[in-house]
C-alpha cells in the first residue's frame, strides 16, 4: 500500500497561514483496507462548496471567480504535460456549446501507479473535483475514464458514484467509461476520440478538444490527480494551496517511486522537495544507483552522479533536461545495465506508436534498431551521428507528442550513460545485459485499433 510523507511545516509569517501547510493533502485518510467512503470523506474534508449557484449571468460570474482563484493557485495539470489548469478551464468555459468534463484515469505509463492508487483509495476526491470542474465550465456531464486493464479502478469509482445515488441521479451527470490500455489511449485527443465513439487513436489538431471534443462539444480533459487538487482548492483556496511547493509549481504532487528503494510505492511530496527526502520516505536506497528515470517512459534519464542534488520540480529538473511529468521516479540499481534498459524502453515505445504518422513509425523503429545495434556491439561506424539525425527527424513531427517523449528518453539515456554506451559499442553486451529489464515493458493485450492503410505500405 502506498506510504505518505511526514508532515512538513513551512516557515512563513503566522498571519498568512489560515490553515497549516501540512502533508499529506490528497492522501489524507488513505486506508489500506479499501476506498474511503463518502461519509468519512466528507467528515475529513468538509462539504463540497458550490462554485456556481446563481442564474445564468450571476452563475457565470461565480464560475469566473473560481477560475481566477484556480489561476492564482498556479495548479499545473498532472497527466504529464503540466499545462496550467486554469487556462484550460477558461478556454472550455468560453467555448460555444454545452461543455463536458472528462476525468482521465487511463495511466498508460507502466511505471506509474499514482492515478490508480488515488482512484482505488480516494475516489470521492476525484468525483468532487469533477463536479467542481463541471460547475466552473458549465458542463452537465462528467465522464470518469478508467483503464480497462484496471477493473479495480472501475469498481472503486463505480461504487463511489453509487454512494452518491448512482449514474444518472446526480447533477452534473456522473458516468464511468472504460478505455483501452495502450500507452497513447490516455492522450487527450485519443481519449476524446474513443469516448465519442471513434477509435482510441490521437487525432490531428486543430480543432482542439476544448473547442470541439466529444460529439463536437467543448471538452475539459483533466487527469484524476488534477481533479483531486481542484477539489481541495475549491475548499481551501489558492493561498492555502501555495503554502507548499515552489512559486512556479505550487502545491503537493503524487509520485510513483520504484527501483532501488526499500518501499516502492506512491508518495505525496511537496513539489520542489529533494529526491533524497523522497528516498528517505521510501525507507532508503537498497544499494548504489546508476541513474534515475524521471517523468515517465517519455521522460528523462539522469546519471547517478547528479542524483544527490536533485529537487523534484520542473525548475530544478530543467538543467538536467527533465520535468516531473507524470510523477514517475525510477531509481536504476547497479544490477541493471543502463544501455539495455534504454534500448528496452526504446523498443517498447516504438511498439506503442499509434502507427498513424510516418515519422513516428519509421523514426522510432529505426532508433530502436540503432540502439540494439549499439548494445550488442554491432553498430556501424558513426552510429552516434545516425542516432542524432534520426532523433531530429522523429521529434515534433507526429500528431501527438509520443515521438517527442520517446526521443527525449533515448537521447537523455545516451547522454547520461555516455561511458556505458561507448563501452557497449566497442565490446558488445555486458554481463548485466542478459538480466530481465528492471523497468516493466508490459505485454498485456493492447487492443490498439488498427491504423488506416499506413502499415500496409511499410
Amino acid at each position, binding site marked *: 500500500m502506498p506510504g505518505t510523507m511526514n508532515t512538513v511545516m513551512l516557515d512563513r509569517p503566522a498571519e498568512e497561514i489560515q490553515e497549516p501547510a501540512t502533508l499529506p493533502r490528497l492522501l489524507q485518510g488513505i486506508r489500506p483496507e479499501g476506498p474511503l467512503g463518502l461519509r468519512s470523506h466528507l467528515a475529513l474534508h468538509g462539504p463540497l462548496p458550490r462554485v456556481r449557484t446563481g442564474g445564468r449571468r450571476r452563475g457565470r460570474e461565480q464560475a469566473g471567480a473560481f477560475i481566477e482563484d484556480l489561476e492564482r493557485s498556479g495548479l499545473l495539470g498532472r497527466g504529464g504535460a503540466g499545462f496550467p489548469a486554469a487556462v484550460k478551464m477558461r478556454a472550455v468555459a468560453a467555448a460555444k456549446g454545452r461543455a463536458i468534463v472528462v476525468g482521465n484515469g487511463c495511466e498508460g505509463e507502466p511505471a506509474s501507479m499514482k492515478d490508480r492508487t488515488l482512484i482505488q483509495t480516494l475516489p470521492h476526491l476525484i468525483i468532487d473535483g469533477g463536479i467542481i470542474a463541471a460547475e466552473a465550465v458549465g458542463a452537465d456531464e462528467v465522464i470518469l475514464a478508467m483503464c480497462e486493464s484496471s477493473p479495480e479502478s472501475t469498481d472503486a469509482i463505480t461504487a463511489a458514484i453509487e454512494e452518491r445515488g448512482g449514474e444518472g441521479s446526480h447533477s452534473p451527470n456522473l458516468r464511468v467509461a472504460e478505455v483501452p490500455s495502450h500507452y497513447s489511449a490516455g492522450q487527450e485527443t485519443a481519449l476524446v476520440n474513443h469516448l465519442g465513439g471513434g477509435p482510441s487513436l*490521437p*487525432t*490531428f489538431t*486543430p480543432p482542439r478538444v476544448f473547442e470541439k471534443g466529444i460529439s463536437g462539444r467543448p471538452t475539459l480533459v483533466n487527469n484524476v490527480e488534477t481533479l483531486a487538487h481542484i477539489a481541495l482548492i475549491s475548499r481551501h483556496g489558492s493561498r492555502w494551496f501555495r503554502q507548499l511547493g515552489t512559486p512556479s509549481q505550487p502545491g503537493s504532487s503524487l509520485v510513483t517511486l520504484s527501483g532501488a528503494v526499500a518501499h516502492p510505492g506512491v508518495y505525496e511530496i511537496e513539489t520542489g522537495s529533494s529526491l533524497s527526502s523522497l528516498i528517505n520516505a521510501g525507507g532508503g536506497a537498497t544499494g548504489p544507483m546508476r541513474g534515475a528515470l524521471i517523468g515517465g517512459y517519455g521522460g528523462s534519464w539522469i546519471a547517478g552522479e547528479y542524483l544527490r542534488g536533485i529537487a523534484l520540480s520542473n525548475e530544478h529538473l530543467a538543467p538536467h533536461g527533465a520535468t516531473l511529468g507524470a510523477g514517475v521516479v525510477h531509481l536504476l540499481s547497479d544490477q541493471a545495465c543502463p544501455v539495455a534498459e534504454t534500448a528496452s524502453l526504446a523498443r517498447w515505445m516504438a511498439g506503442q506508436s499509434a502507427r*498513424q*504518422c*510516418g*515519422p*513516428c513509425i*519509421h523514426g522510432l523503429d529505426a532508433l530502436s534498431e540503432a540502439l540494439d545495434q549499439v548494445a550488442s556491439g554491432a553498430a556501424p561506424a558513426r552510429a552516434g551521428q545516425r542516432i542524432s539525425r534520426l532523433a531530429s*527527424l522523429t521529434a515534433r*513531427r*507526429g*500528431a501527438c507528442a509520443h515521438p517527442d517523449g520517446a526521443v527525449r528518453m533515448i537521447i537523455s539515456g545516451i547522454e547520461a550513460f555516455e561511458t556505458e554506451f561507448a563501452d557497449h559499442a566497442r565490446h558488445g553486451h555486458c554481463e548485466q545485459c542478459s538480466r530481465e529489464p528492471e523497468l516493466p515493458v508490459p505485454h498485456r493485450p493492447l487492443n490498439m485499433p488498427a491504423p488506416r*492503410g*499506413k502499415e500496409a*505500405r511499410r
Partner: protein
Amino acid sequence: MSRRVRVNPITCEAHGMCAELLPERIKLDEWGYPIVDGAPLEGEQVDHAVRAARACPTFALLVNNERR
C-alpha cells in the same frame, strides 16, 4: 495576415508531390515524408503552396492563416 504551410502527419502518405511543387519550403526525409518550414510564406510562394495543397492526393498539406 501571414500564411503558412503545415502537414497533417496522420493523413500524409509520403506521395511527395508537395516537395516537387514547393521545394523552397518542403524537403523529404529518408522515408519520403515532408519536412516543412512553417515560416510565413513570401510573395508567389503562397500560390505555389496553394497549388501543392490541391495536388496532394490525401489533402494532407494545409495552407492556413493561423499561427502554428
